[in-house]
């Protein structure tokens, strides 16, 4: 299986990876269907607003240190920059860098452009972005409006390359193309292949690419890899254009989340022979064992890795036993994206929690290296009967499920999800940082966080007694999947 890195646009996940956003069954069934390529998507008769590719693409590209984004769209498509600037400030804060604002220029597309075309306006915006930001590269993100009216973004970008003498790269991320917002990550990485990443000048055996979001654990990772004689290059946010240009020189690529990193990791292996570490995500013991062992194999440091693993595990064992005794048997439900969530279910298992149901925002039947995601395979081996559904943050289903299950804790990831469980009086742990439960010590820290969340439940309990849910009695008395339709063929 290869990715077409030369095409103008990346292929969306539904087609490329057999991704679905509608499924209900068990983990074992899901993994079996994915393995046999028989997985079918199920649509819904009712849906709530989800997210789109453009937000994911812009989140990554706008945080490159010395690049800029021109968002060819009506003003609302830049709505995500408000939140992204918050994470930008957060990233600058933890790096002790001065604060800056995101270099994003929106073309403010109006009715006129939808009638007469927006090519000339885009040309002006790219020139203006170049003047304002003195960027080393400009990414041009598309929108539903620019795509439907058929603006020739690639043509405009090409026509300015000579004049501005920097890469100007179209990023095809219009929202209506894919139901899977993670397609926008692929669009951002595809853009890197299109105009940023250079062939290696030399190989750097000490360098390891790490695909992540904000990199809060960067100092810990630097120390960890340092013990193996390796050094990390964090991708994409807060990297520079020059650093990204040379990620082809690394000895290996690791990713903190399979959903996030699949396209870039596989593409780097395919085009430049940079081995992709095909492991679990690095959360908890099993995750970190897998992350380090697979890395060790790739860079030839198995002995060092085994020594490190043994030392760290021995160190945390007594405290972990204490944590497990306090959380043993607590019933948990998890709702997260697949790359992160399927691995994170292992963390909950290691903490002694009893996971009774999991929901995934989408599911990729395979990753770009051609196999069903490793985390899903392992999960199916460990707990094949676990009730499992896929829904793109469809709160009406989740609320219905949680109300029936009444778990002790709900673990969520993604802004705007945790509150709904809290409104049911359920203790909620929002796992917003990608390095929550990172490795051995991270597991201990996270375990204490879960214990603390259980200690004082008054806020959620009081809130739930005072607010009304927006659902009708009719809906709350239905099966949670009553509006999930029969399957149809995909990919």
């Amino acid at each position: 299986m290869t990715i077409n890195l030369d095409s103008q646009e990346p292929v969306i996940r539904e087609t490329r990876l057999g991704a679905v956003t509608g499924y209900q069954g068990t983990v074992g069934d899901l993994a079996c269907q994915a393995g046999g390529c028989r997985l079918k998507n199920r649509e819904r008769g009712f849906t709530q607003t989800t997210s789109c590719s453009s937000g994911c693409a812009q989140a990554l590209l706008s945080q490159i240190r010395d690049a800029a984004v021109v968002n060819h769209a009506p003003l609302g498509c830049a709505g995500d920059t408000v939140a992204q600037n918050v994470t930008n400030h957060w990233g600058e804060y933890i790096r002790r860098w001065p604060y800056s604002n995101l270099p994003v220029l929106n073309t403010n597309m109006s009715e006129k452009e939808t009638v007469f075309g927006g090519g000339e306006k885009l040309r002006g915006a790219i020139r203006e972005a170049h003047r304002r930001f003195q960027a080393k590269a400009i990414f041009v993100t598309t929108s539903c409006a620019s795509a439907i009216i058929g603006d020739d973004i690639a043509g405009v970008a090409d026509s300015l390359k000579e004049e501005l003498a920097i890469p100007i790269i179209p990023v095809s991320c219009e929202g209506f193309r894919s139901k899977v917002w993670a397609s926008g990550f692929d669009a951002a990485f595809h853009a890197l292949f299109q105009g940023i990443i250079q062939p290696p000048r030399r190989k750097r055996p000490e360098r390891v690419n790490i695909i992540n979001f904000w990199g809060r654990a960067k100092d810990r990772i630097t120390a960890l890899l340092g013990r193996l004689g390796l050094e990390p290059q964090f991708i994409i946010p807060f990297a520079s254009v020059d650093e990204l240009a040379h990620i082809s020189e690394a000895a290996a690529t690791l990713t903190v989340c399979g959903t996030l990193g699949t396209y870039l990791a596989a593409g780097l292996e395919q085009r430049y022979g940079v081995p992709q570490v095909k492991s679990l995500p690095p959360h908890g013991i099993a995750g970190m064992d897998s992350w380090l062992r697979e890395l060790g194999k790739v860079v030839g440091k198995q002995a060092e890795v085994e020594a490190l693993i043994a030392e760290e595990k021995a160190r945390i064992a007594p405290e972990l036993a204490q944590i497990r005794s306090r959380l043993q048997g607590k019933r948990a439900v998890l709702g997260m994206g697949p790359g992160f969530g399927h691995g994170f279910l292992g963390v909950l298992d290691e903490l002694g929690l009893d996971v009774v149901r999991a929901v995934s925002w989408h599911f990729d039947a395979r990753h770009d290296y051609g196999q069903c995601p490793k985390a899903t395979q392992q999960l199916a081996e460990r707990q094949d009967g676990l009730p499992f559904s896929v829904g793109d943050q469809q709160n009406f289903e989740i609320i219905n499920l949680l109300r029936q299950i009444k778990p002790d804790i709900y673990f969520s990831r993604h802004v705007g999800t945790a509150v709904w469980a809290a409104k049911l009086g359920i203790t909620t742990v929002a796992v917003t940082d990608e390095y929550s439960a990172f490795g051995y010590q991270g597991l201990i820290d996270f375990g204490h966080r879960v214990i603390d969340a259980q200690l004082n439940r008054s806020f959620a309990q009081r809130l739930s007694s005072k607010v009304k849910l927006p659902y009708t009695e009719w809906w709350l008395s239905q099966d949670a999947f009553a509006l999930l339709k029969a399957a149809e063929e995909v990919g």
Partner: protein
Amino acid sequence: MSQFVEQIRQVCALGAMQTVLAIPRAVPILHAGPGCGQKLWSALGEYHGYQGSGYTGGHSIPCTNSGEKEVIFGGDERLREVTANTLRVIDGDLYVILTGCTADIVGDDVGEVARRFQEQGKPVVYAETGGFKGTNFYGHERVLEAIIDQYLKPVAAAASASAVEPGLVNVWSVVPYQDAFWTGNLQAIGQLLQSIGLTPNIIFGPGGGVDALRRVPKAQFNLLLSPWVGLQTVHHLEQSFGTPYFHYPIFPIGPTETGRFLRQLADYAGIAGERVEAVIAEQEAHYYYYIERSADFLFESRSGLPGRFVTIADSFYALGITRFLIQDLGMLPEVQFITDDTPPEHQQAINGYFENIAEGVRPPVVFANDGGEVREALRAIRFRERPLILGSTWDRVSARELKGYSLSVSLPISERLVLSRAYAGYDGALRLTEDIYSVILSDYQ
């Protein structure tokens, strides 16, 4: 309208979904792409004062999540299905279908879909709010127009006697969610009206909802407390129900402006002057009790009080704050940026409201909703002392460069949690004074 926009200060027309959410138990139904709701909610709701999802906002908003299929084959059928199921699943009093770019460009017949539900007696209305049509200020008025035409007119026609209720005043002012302080401000305005014997009818926020909406046609008059947003709505209400309106363009902050507002309002409403003067005297006494106590500090501070002040805000705040700081706190203005994409036909009037605030004090006014333009203009100014910058979270970066003091009052406000705080009226002016000087005092302590 700025040609390009860096650092957004408002969103597109579909942002009016937050106007719907501001009406208790009203439910927006988006006929739009999958990311519109999330992006608009995160800018206007979640990361702007952390206003959150509320009853059915954020990722709970019904949406067709239109994809390739709806773009190529049309989305009417999908909208019909999602609307029908919304009525079954979401417990609401009023449902407002809002279109995004996809539906408006491919030309879905959304009106026809909505009419089918209306014929069945369902409280469903629709507005065309494709993002390319304008800002959320534009969308806000389209939503109100849709509610007036498709919901209120049939209500008024069915009522046997839609007699005017004397003293009932519909309150139209700040745009919900765009103004992070909207709930507090509307409540404060309501209290001002009550203080002189009027009955405020506030549609948005706590206590509002469809009952308040249904009273709209019965009002004695509409009050528009806004420089330009809402003018179309009060005109439309006048045409639809014959209700006159009183337009006071300045958002009243502080005793001078609030007193002027109350006197003119009372005059319009036919309320006796003595009653209003008694209210003003009582409120001013309360206000000056606190200001007198703070005056020691304000006249003797060693903390390096700000030199000139700059506002970078919607016209509501730019005008309201500027007039308060000049009239009541005796500050001096530098340039004032108005960032609400003010239509050209309203700019001259707004310019005029900045004149004659105090003798010899006339701030330059710049209309710009492009943050890059604001940043470059600010860099060109030579401030002799540390300026006070009343803008948004974006402007804190410029404020640091200028060694200024910054207080965020305009979208986006992502470094403050906003609950019931209000800046309107007498108490609002005290809050604003507290906030400004707390920024200054905490800067070095």
